[in-house]
Structures are given as C-alpha cells and as structure tokens.
C-alpha cells in the first residue's frame, strides 16, 4: 500500500514542475548554466542569421529607401502589400506574451510560471519587427517623425481622425508598457545573476538589477507594480489589435469595413501568438541545457488546450465575418468573396482554413498528442503560416478587388520577400542573443510557485494543496 502511494506521489512530482522542487541554489545554478553553455552550433546559426539580417534587412532596406517603394511589389490597386501583412503578423505574435504573462497571471494559472519570460520576450521582439515592417512600408520614412504629435513652429499636427494615428499611439503604448512589464519580473532574476557572475556580465547584471537586494520592502513594491501592470496591460493588448483592425475596418472598401474585425483580429493575434509561443518553448526545451526540468509535457498540454479553444474562437469569428459580409449582399463584396475562394490564390484561402482550423482540431483534442513538443511545434508552425495567409488574404488579395474594375490587377511581391525573411531572422537573432544574456526562466516565480504547492496525505489519498502567497 505504501509503495503504491509512494508511486502516485512520484508520478505527480514527475508530471508537475510545481510539485517537484529543487533547492534554490541548485535551481539558480541550472538557469545560469543554461545561459552559459553555448555550443558551436549556436554560433553557426547565429552567424547565418546575422548574415541574413545584414543582407535581407539592412541592405535591402537601404536600397528601398534610396530607390523608392518601386522596388517592392506594391502597385495600383494593391497599395499595401507584404509590409503591412508582416506588421499585422508581428503584432499578432506579440500578443501571446501579454496573454500568457498578464492574463494567466491575473487568473493565477500556475502552469504559466516557467515560460512567462519566454513569452514576454516574444512580445518585445515581435513589436520591434512590426515597427520595422511598418516603417519599410512608408514612401518617405525619413520624415516619419511628422506622424508624432510634437510641438513645432508651424503649428502642424498629425491627423487624429486617421486610424493610422491611432495605430501609432496604440503600438507605441504597447511597446513601452510591454517592455516595462518584461523588465519588472526580470529584476530579481537579474539580481540573482549578478550575484552569480563575474567580469563584464557582473557589470551588465548590476546595472539591470537596479540594486535589488531582496528586502521585504522591495518585494512588496515589485509585487504591487507587477499587479498594476498585469491588470493595466490587458486592455492595452486588446486595444492594440482592435485598433490595427480599424486600419481596415474604418476604410471604405469591400471586405474591409466589417464591424466584427476588432475581436476577429484580436483572436487571430492570439491564435498565431500561441502557436509561436509553443514553437519557441519546443526549441528552447530541445536546445538549451537544463530546460527539460523547467518545461515539461504538462506545459505543452496546457498551451495546446488554449490553442484548441482559440482555434475554435477564431473559426467562429471567421464564420461570423464571412456570414455577415455574404448576407449583406453588396455586389462588390460578393465579387471579393468569390475572388478569395475561386481566384488565382484560392489555394491560400483553403490552406488558411486547413491550417487554422482543421489541423488544430484534428490533433489538439488528444491529450497525448498535445503533450508532445514536436507535434505541437508542427501545429504551431502551421497555424502561423495559416494566420500569415489570413493577413495576406485581407491585405493584398482583397485590395485587388475594388469598386473600380478597370484597375483590378494582381500583386507580385518584390523586395518584400528578403525584407520579410530579414525580420524573421532578426526576431530569432534577438531571441538567441537574449537567451545568452537573460534568464529565460523566471526562477523566482518558479520557486514562489513551488513554495505554495505541496503534497498532503489525507487518509490514503495524496492531494495537491496550494496556499496563497500574495
């Protein structure tokens, strides 16, 4: 009997990080080790990505600025192309970080603890790529500061009636607040890293730790600040993608002026963002030292469940959007819907539905499958491809159909392709650099969670108990 109980307890510990505590010092060392252990393979990938960023992003962007938007594929009527697709895509990716770290924190979902940082880093780095993409798009990027409301002698002011002005403010707010929100829980880990390193790293962490010593007062302030941010950033997150959707929904175009676009875009953002988080976690777990302890099948299982629910929500909003547009009966919208499905890029429309709905539904219902990192990695990848297709359908494909049929014309991407690959490479590059410098696992949060959890015996039953720490 005792043996059986022992086995049940053992099983629970293996399954759940929160029930499998290690001594603090050992866990800190494990995280430090994961940052310091860098194999030659890392540097090979890092080097290749650096070259891609240098050529694909910076050289191509320089050419774009010097020669004009003509070297991209945009034309009449597709005045917006892959640059805008990528902007929406990267902002979408950035949503997962806030969703995981703020919403799950507010709801006290315990499984979030080991990967909040990994998700928050995605927010910041994703927004950097979104910023690059939107500035690439502009015809005269060197005067883009005119869009900022700054006092000037001529009394010129940006137009606050334009959804693009709302967008600029929303994205800037989101970038600033999410960066602060990334930094706050990082402070205790920076202090931990400071105490455990030497040389230039010591100086680096010393600056970022802001002199954190771990006194009771410091912890209280930190918790208060994090609580405020966690609640305040949720409406910011929802507003950002809603406002991005208004760039389209507020326009006078068939297929765009849809009232459901706000929530549809937010859910789409979460869909691609969760897919991206799970990809990052699978890679981190497979490539970084000691990560198999922190990131376990239970985490993939939990995110997989969320992905399934978000996929269903996305399917609902897609159907709703389609239904209302179709039922509206506008002749241009009818043309457009036909063009989506049966036009030359109809395969993309069907691929979008298969990747965003059919495949997640067919795989994620199964607990065993969604606990497997590589299965969810592939599903997450396909969801991201599907969500990129969705934005491609909304922007350049929908733009080819307008109310002036004489101008209908296909869009063929040009320099957008190297630039898009460049932003992807830069995202991965920033992430790789961060994985060497920043503890990817918020150690103190894991330790805090483990302290709160314990296994208690009630008669013959082993029960998981959680105490409230805050």
């Amino acid at each position, binding site marked *: 009997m005792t043996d059986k109980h022992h086995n049940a307890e053992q099983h629970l510990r293996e399954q759940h990080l929160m029930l499998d505590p290690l001594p603090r010092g050992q866990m800190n060392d494990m995280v430090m080790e994961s940052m310091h252990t860098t194999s030659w393979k890392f540097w090979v990938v890092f080097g290749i990505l650096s070259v891609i960023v240098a050529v694909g992003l910076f050289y191509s962007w320089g050419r774009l600025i010097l*020669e*004009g*938007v*003509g*070297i991209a594929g*945009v*034309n*009449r*009527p597709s*005045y*917006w192309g892959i640059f805008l697709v990528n902007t929406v895509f990267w902002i979408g990716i950035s949503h997962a970080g806030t969703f995981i770290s703020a919403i799950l924190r507010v709801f006290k979902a315990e499984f979030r603890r080991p990967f909040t940082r990994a998700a928050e880093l995605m927010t910041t780095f994703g927004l950097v790529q979104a910023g690059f993409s939107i500035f690439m*798009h*502009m*015809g*005269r*990027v060197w*005067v*883009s500061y*005119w*869009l900022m409301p700054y006092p000037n002698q001529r009394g*010129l*002011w*940006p*137009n606050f*009636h*334009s*959804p*693009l*002005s709302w967008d*600029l403010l929303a994205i800037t707010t989101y970038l600033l607040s999410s960066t602060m929100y990334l930094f706050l829980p990082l402070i205790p880990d920076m202090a931990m890293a400071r105490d455990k390193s030497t040389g230039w790293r010591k100086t680096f962490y010393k600056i970022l730790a802001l002199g954190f010593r771990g006194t009771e007062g410091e912890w209280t302030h930190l918790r208060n600040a994090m609580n405020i941010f966690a609640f305040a950033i949720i409406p910011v997150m929802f507003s950002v993608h809603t406002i991005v959707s208004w*760039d389209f929904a*507020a*326009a*006078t*175009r068939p297929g765009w002026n849809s009232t459901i676009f706000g929530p549809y875009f937010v859910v789409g953002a979460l869909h691609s963002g969760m897919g991206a988080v799970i990809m990052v976690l699978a890679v981190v777990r497979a490539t970084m030292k000691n990560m198999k302890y922190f990131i376990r099948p239970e985490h993939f299982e939990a995110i997989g469940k969320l992905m399934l629910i978000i996929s269903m929500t996305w399917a609902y909003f897609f159907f709703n959007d389609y239904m209302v547009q179709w039922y509206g009966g506008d002749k241009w919208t009818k043309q457009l819907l036909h063009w989506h499905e049966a036009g030359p890029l109809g395969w993309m429309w069907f691929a979008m539905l298969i990747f965003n709905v059919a495949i997640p539904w067919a795989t994620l219902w199964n607990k065993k499958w969604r606990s497997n990192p590589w299965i969810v990695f592939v599903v997450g990848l396909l969801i991201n491809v599907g969500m990129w297709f969705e934005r491609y359908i909304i922007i350049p494909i929908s*733009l080819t159909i*307008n*109310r*002036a*049929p*004489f*101008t209908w*014309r296909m869009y*063929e991407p040009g320099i957008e392709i190297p630039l898009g690959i460049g932003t992807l490479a830069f995202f991965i590059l920033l992430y790789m650099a961060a994985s060497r410098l920043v503890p990817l696992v918020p150690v103190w949060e894991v330790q805090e969670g483990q302290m709160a959890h314990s296994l208690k015996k009630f008669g013959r039953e082993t029960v998981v108990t959680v105490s409230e720490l805050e």
Partner: protein
Amino acid sequence: MIDLNVVGAKGALVEEAEGKWGMVIDQDICTGCQACVTACAMENNIAFVGEEDAGYGRSMHWIRVERFWEGTYPHVKMTHYQPMLCQQCGQAPCEPVCPAFATVHSQAEQVNLQVYNRCVGTRYCANNCPYQVRSFNWRDYNDERINSAIATLKNQYNPDVTVRRRGVMEKCTFCIQRIHKAQDKAKSEGREVADGEFTTACAQACPADAITFGRVDDPESLVSQLARQGHGVKHLEELGTLPRVTYLVGGA
C-alpha cells in the same frame, strides 16, 4: 454646441452637395483618343514611368480613359469610354485617413488637394479612394540618373506646377494653377471670372468637347446646364462621397 466645421474636424465636414468647381463628361461623344490624358500629363508635370512600371499598374495619370466590355466571347460589345479622374468629392474618403494631413480640402476652391511636401507615403488615401484615381511616385521618375528618358522631356515642365519626388502621392487638382491664374487676372481687372474664360487641360485638349469644366454653384454656367440634363450620373454616389463630376451617358 461646437460647430465642427469651424474647428475643422474632417469627419464633420459637410458642404452643400454642389460645391464650387465641377465637371461634366459626355461619354456619348468621347472617342477615347487619350488627348485629355496627354494634355494632363503635360500640364501637371506628371512623370513618365516607363514601359515596365506602366505594365505593372504604376502608370501615373491623373485622368485615365477606362474601357469596358459587355458579354462573353464571342458576343462581346464595347461600352462607352469612361474618362476617370478625381471626382473632387465633397466628403472625400481619402481625406480623413491621412495621418499627416497631407491630403486636404481647399476651403476656398472646394477641391481636394495633395500637399506633396507633407506626404509621408502611407498610401492609405489611395486605398480608400473608391475611384482609384490617386497616383503614387513609386520611384524618382523625374531624376535623370534613374529615368534617362526624362533628360530632354525636362524642358517642357510647366513652371507653375511642382515636380514631385519619390514616395509621395499625387492627384488631379482640377488644374488649380489655372484656376488661380484666372482668378488673379479677373481680380486685377476688377471683375468676376466669366464662365468659359479658362478651362482645365483635359477639357481644353478634348477634340470632341466631351469635357466641360466650370462653376457648378452657378446655375447659368454651361457645366450646370449640362449636368441638369436627365441622363446625368454621378459615380458611386451611394457611398455619400458627394462627387463633383457628372457623367452623361445614353443621352442622344
């Protein structure tokens, strides 16, 4: 209540439906000769984009002659030629979407103008134009180093009109330089501008006299009289854009 027109809020900008300057295009007599397109390009220093870009939907014309066909092959019938230019909307969809206030409504002339040196090139206005009549400077087409064909053509630039750089949007202005010239001349002579005293480049060049330009707020002007004919059509009027161009089709 605050009068939003006075404070200049764009969304609230509602004028009388007729505006000030307007145009009538008689599709029944248009021969599709493209003289208007050429004259417009000469008058307004519009860039020649070259064969390749023109073939890819980047030709920069402020007026274009659209052709349509009816029916399916082999029973195809050509419909009327349709010269399409900026409709100088009273409530223009392009105006409120510009984040930099680069596309503005001229209070004095009631036309929609582009401020080239304020444009940052987001191209939102062009997306939002239901007539698709805005044109974008995709490259430095007026730079000899990029477009060698421009070397000699430079000599025929109109000194009254700006030459645009890469990355900015441009559009039909109803030949605002001609409007101003005529107004200045009339003012110096102490009189009003007479109907038909001047006209736009496209109307001037039209050999069939299919384009008429003038004051639509004057019921006696030729353009108002033509627009009053029963068969006048305003394009995409249902969007509430208050277009200033009337198309005559199927009259006689």
